[in-house]
């Protein structure tokens, strides 16, 4: 039984976390169409599930009160907060910090890996990245219907 408990404990204490960072673009180097980005945003969030569906522990999104870089080992047990929506919550917090809500090159990846534990424990990982641009003064507030 110890062989099972110790690896899970190790995961909960050390391996399960979330990381978010917003880095200012300190250069006039342009991207594709001559635009100079304001900052780069990355976030990643991990969770672990027993047998692929029983939540063991999770990291959490970047929210009010966190530092400029969140490298968080504040693990929440028996929950799964590694979702696209939570990464977008982190993104919105980063946008508020930077003071611009205009982005480009939004990208997300989701990875599941359970083979390492012989399918006993699944490691679920959601990563989101984008470039933050300066607000376009000519642009109006985002409006329109959500897709169904």
């Amino acid at each position, binding site marked *: *039984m110890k*062989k*099972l408990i110790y690896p899970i404990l190790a995961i909960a204490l050390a391996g399960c976390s979330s990381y978010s960072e917003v880095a200012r673009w300190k250069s006039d180097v342009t991207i594709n169409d001559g*635009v100079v980005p304001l900052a780069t945003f990355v976030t990643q969030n991990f969770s672990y599930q027993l*047998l*692929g*569906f029983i939540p063991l522990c999770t990291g959490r999104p970047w929210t009010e009160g966190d530092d400029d870089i969140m490298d968080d080992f504040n693990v929440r047990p028996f929950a799964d907060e590694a979702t*696209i*929506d939570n990464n*977008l*919550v982190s*993104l*919105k917090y980063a*946008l508020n910090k930077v003071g611009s*809500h*205009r*982005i*480009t*090159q*939004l*990208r*997300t*990846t*989701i*990875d*599941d*890996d*359970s*083979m*390492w*534990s*012989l*399918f*006993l424990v*699944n490691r679920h990982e959601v990563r989101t990245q*984008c470039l933050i*641009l300066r*607000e*376009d003064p000519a*642009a*109006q*507030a*985002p*409006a*329109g*219907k*959500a*897709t*169904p």
Partner: protein
Amino acid sequence: MKKLLLAASGMAAALMLASGCATVTYSSPRILDEVSIKGTDNKLGQLVFVDTTGFYLLWSLPIFSGDLRWDAQKRSIVGGTRIFTDMVDVESVQGALLNIAESLNCDLVDVTFHDSDVSFAEPSYFGLVGAFLGLSRISASAVLVPRAEPK
């Protein structure tokens, strides 16, 4: 104890197979309000992620793989897992993305593809046997932007 662990592993592997190796995940429809994505004309976008995975013996013999075929009648991805068939390629992921966009009357912005391969030589449970097994995954993410008029 070893037998119990193996039984649990077998059950988990079966569950994984049953739940499928192909997934489509959407963000909540309004989670990106207040965010302006370049190229969307300030329309509200929704993030979509499409992913398919295959397991192979000796990197060439498919054991099982995700199924992203489009069901024209249900207007959705078939989903699930195909045994001894390799369905993991960029074309199937791209096709799924385009079918989703067409069915929702949306255009796509910020389309990115991601692929990865993993060998199981390292996990101690498998030992050297793991070196014969490989996993290949192709995924794509994009922002769905509603069209003003249906095409």
